[in-house]
Structures are given as structure tokens and as C-alpha cells.
């Protein structure tokens, strides 16, 4: 379903969505984040992407799994804690972030579904905003199966076509949202359709970063397990968690027990973000570590995204958002690495 929404009507529409918690990109200091908003008159036009991707909504940094206690008489007791039942609409989601959630679903919703993720995802309404005219310096979604107007993982995509948004309503959830403010939506005409297409084309031309033949990387990486590129590239790696914490597709977590009181025992089992870039991630209790150094960990990151995930799900586990490139404090550049491994083939 395609619709037209006047920019000036956005606020009115959002006003109709009072049953939902609404999130939109807001500026904090220097960067953008999804924050809860009580009203939304416009979507920012000067932002490329938020700092912490949409995944934080479906896979928050900390998720309480259950409470436990062991009081003196009753013995241990476990109380499941599920995410609050609250529907959430996030506005201004870029294609890469929405695709991120879609890719996460493959892991979390397929075999042994993760009830926490599921519930959060089911309650999430994604209102995307296509990337025009501003793909970021480090964006390369086009190379990895996405694009500035990608709709994957979205319920609605808004595309700025001047004074109005071209609205693509993609799912029943999207329809539900539009339904709530149906009076503000009009039918698009051909001109609108052309505007949208023209802009998509133009946006695609503006990309200055790409991974050459990204889909073929799996085949190349297959032979590069022992390559020295991992060592030279990882020399400067800080083994911090930035590239993965901020990646819309990275999903690793740790599970830990946190105590409110030691006696009587009271606490929570939580899961918190973790990353393969931390040295303790795979370290056994004995000290043995299958991935003992920075190079094996960098390799894991690249391999997971461009080989292992591809082998399992047939897709690249990277949406080309470029965060890991721009946020890496020491300039480790996944695009550059992948473009370089190409030359290793021969």
C-alpha cells in the first residue's frame, strides 16, 4: 500500500498514536539516539543514523530473564520476568537498522525462539525513513543487499519527497498505524511515485564506499582462515566492544546472576551485551582460550558476518551501516579488509 503524508501532518498522525510508546531520533550532544518522545512534529533531516542502532529496542543491553530468591523457609524460587507489554513505534529508522532487526530475527525467532526478543519484536513498529539525500561517509548498504530505500524489516517506510512523505505501508502492523490516522494519508500520484524513484536512484549514486562483490566474499574467506591479514590488521585493535556493541546485527550476550541481597538470597538473572572482541568471551575457566588473540577475534567478526552466517542463512550479517568503520577508534575498516582479501585470492 502506498500513501502520501504531508510533513505538516506528521505530528497530527503521531498524536493519534498515544497508545504506543513513540521513539524518534533526538540529538544528544553530538550524536543522535532513539529516545522516547511525547510528540513528534518532524523528523530530523540532518541526521545519517543514530548512534546505538535499533537493536537496542529488541535486544536491550540488559534484559532481566527472571528473579530468584531463596528465603529461609520456602526454598529457592524462580519468577519469570518478561518484557513489559508495551507497543513501541520507532520513527526515523534507517534501512540498515531495520534490516538489522530482520537479520536478528533469523537467529532469535527460528530454532528455540527467544521469548524475550520475540515479545519485544512483536511489540515493535518500525517506521523507516529512507536515506536521501544523506548517505553517511561510511555507508555501504548497497554492497550488502540493502539500500537507502530498503524496506526489509520495516512496517512503514517514509521517503522525503519535498514537502511530503511518500509512505509505503508494508505490513499489517504498518496498516494498523496508518489506520489510526487515516485522515492524514492521501493517495500518491504518478509524480509522487516518480519523485520517490528519482530520489532513490540519486541516493544510490551518491555512495562512495562499496565492498566489491560482497556476496562472493564467503568463497574467498573460506580459504583465509590462516591469512596474515588478521595479524597485521588487528595489531592496532583495542579489543573494545565498540564495533560489535554498535553493530545492528551483532547479538552476542552474556548471562549473569546479579544479587540484590546475599542473605537471604535475592537476585536476578540477566543477560547483557557481550562481544567476541572481549578476550574473556571464549575463555574457559581453565584459562584455555580458543580465540586467544586479537587476530583470531577480528577474524571471527569478519568471518561470522561474511562467511559463517552466509553458510547458515544465505545472507550477509552486515547491513552496511558503517558504524564499525566510523566508530572504531583505531580505524579498523571492514570494507577495506574485505576489499583487500579479494586480492589475496590469486
Amino acid at each position, binding site marked *: 500500500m502506498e500513501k502520501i503524508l504531508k510533513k505538516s501532518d506528521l505530528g497530527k498522525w503521531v498524536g493519534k498514536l498515544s497508545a504506543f510508546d513513540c521513539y524518534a531520533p533526538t540529538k544528544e550532544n553530538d550524536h543522535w539516539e532513539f529516545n522516547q518522545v511525547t510528540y513528534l512534529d518532524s523528523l530530523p533531516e540532518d541526521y545519517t543514523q543514530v548512534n546505538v542502532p535499533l537493536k537496542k529496542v529488541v535486544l536491550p543491553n540488559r534484559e*532481566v530473564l527472571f528473579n530468584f530468591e531463596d528465603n529461609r523457609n520456602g526454598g529457592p524460587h524462580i519468577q519469570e520476568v518478561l518484557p513489559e507489554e508495551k507497543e513501541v513505534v520507532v520513527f526515523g529508522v534507517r534501512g540498515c537498522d531495520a534490516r538489522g532487526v530482520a537479520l536478528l530475527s533469523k537467529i532469535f525467532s527460528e530454532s528455540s525462539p527467544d521469548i524475550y526478543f520475540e515479545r519485544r519484536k512483536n511489540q515493535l513498529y518500525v517506521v523507516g525513513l529512507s536515506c536521501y539525500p544523506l548517505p553517511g561517509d561510511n555507508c555501504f548498504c548497497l554492497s550488502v543487499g540493502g539500500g537507502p530505500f530498503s524496506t526489509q524489516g520495516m512496517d512503514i517506510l517514509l521517503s522525503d519527497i519535498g514537502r511530503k512523505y511518500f509512505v509505503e505501508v508494508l505490513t499489517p502492523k504498518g496498516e494498523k498505524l496508518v489506520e489510526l490516522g487515516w485522515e492524514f494519508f492521501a493517495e500518491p500520484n504518478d509524480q509522487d511515485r516518480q519523485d520517490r524513484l528519482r530520489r532513490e536512484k540519486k541516493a544510490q549514486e551518491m555512495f562512495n564506499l562499496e565492498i566489491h562483490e560482497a556476496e562472493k566474499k564467503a568463497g574467498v574467506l573460506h580459504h583465509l582462515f590462516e591469512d596474515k591479514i588478521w595479524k597485521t590488521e588487528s595489531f592496532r585493535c583495542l579489543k573494545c566492544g565498540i564495533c560489535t556493541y554498535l553493530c545492528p546485527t551483532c547479538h552476542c550476550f552474556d548471562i549473569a546472576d*546479579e*544479587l*540484590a541481597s546475599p542473605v537471604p538470597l535475592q*537476585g*536476578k538473572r540477566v543477560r547483557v551485551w557481550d562481544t567476541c572482541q572481549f578476550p574473556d568471551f571464549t575463555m574457559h575457566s581453565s584459562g584455555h582460550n580458543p580465540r586467544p588473540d586479537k587476530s583470531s577475534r577480528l577474524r571471527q567478526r569478519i568471518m561470522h558476518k561474511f562467511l559463517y552466517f552466509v553458510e547458515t542463512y544465505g545472507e550477509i550479517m552486515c547491513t552496511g551501516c558503517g558504524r564499525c568503520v566510523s566508530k572504531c577508534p583505531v580505524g579498523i575498516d571492514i570494507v577495506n579488509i574485505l576489499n583487500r582479501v579479494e586480492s589475496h585470492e590469486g
Partner: protein
Amino acid sequence: MNKDHEPRIVAFLCKWCSSAGSDMAGVSRLEYPPNVIPITVMCSGSVSPIYILSAFNLGADGVLVSGCHPGDCHYIKGNMYARRRMALLKELLPYLGLEPERFQMSWVSAAEGVKFTQIIKDFVAQLKPLGPQTYLRRSL
């Protein structure tokens, strides 16, 4: 704010002076509020800043570190190192917005039962109006 709040205080007392000083308060049957739980350590110099932060993290409303007067340290100069460390902490905590009244250091000798009593009274009195410490307190 809850003015009736009974502050929970942890006091790190060095064994030779301050803990003995608190014993002296007892022997002299001086009275002070029961809000303070003492932890006797060998020397004020052994109190790591992380103990204090942890005490706040675990829910203390106030933390006291007490050692021998300068020159009286059973271990010669442990209290001098403590003084330096605590000076920094004393500066740092309010800089982050924790009320400066919540962390206190004192010199109490084995004879100063009266002083110990007074310190606890004063400390409790200055903590009461602040209410519970929630700033660094872990709430899961």
C-alpha cells in the same frame, strides 16, 4: 525528603586506635546512635577506596574511615597514606554530585571514647537530613 530516615553507616576503624577508642566509649558507657556498624581493620592505611565505593554501592548512607592520629600509627605511617587517598576521594565524590557529608575521615585515639561518640553523633546528625543514599546504590 524523609527526615526520619535512619542512616546506615559503615565505619572502618583501625584496630589500634579507633576501634580501641570505640571500645573506650563502651567502657565509659557513653551513648551514641546505633546506626553505625564497625568493621575493624588493622590500619586505616589498609582501607582501599574501593571499599568505600563498594559500601555506597551496596547501600551505605555514610562511610567513616577512622585511624590513629598522625604520628601515632601502630604501623608508623599507614594513616599517612590513608590521608592522601581519602583526600582524593573526599574531593572526587562531591564532584560527581554525592553529598560531601556522606564520606568522612577522622583521627580517633584509643583514649578518645568521647571524641568517637561525638563523631558518630555528628555524622548521624549530618546524614539524617540527606535521606537515603540512592546515588551510587545498586538497585536491580
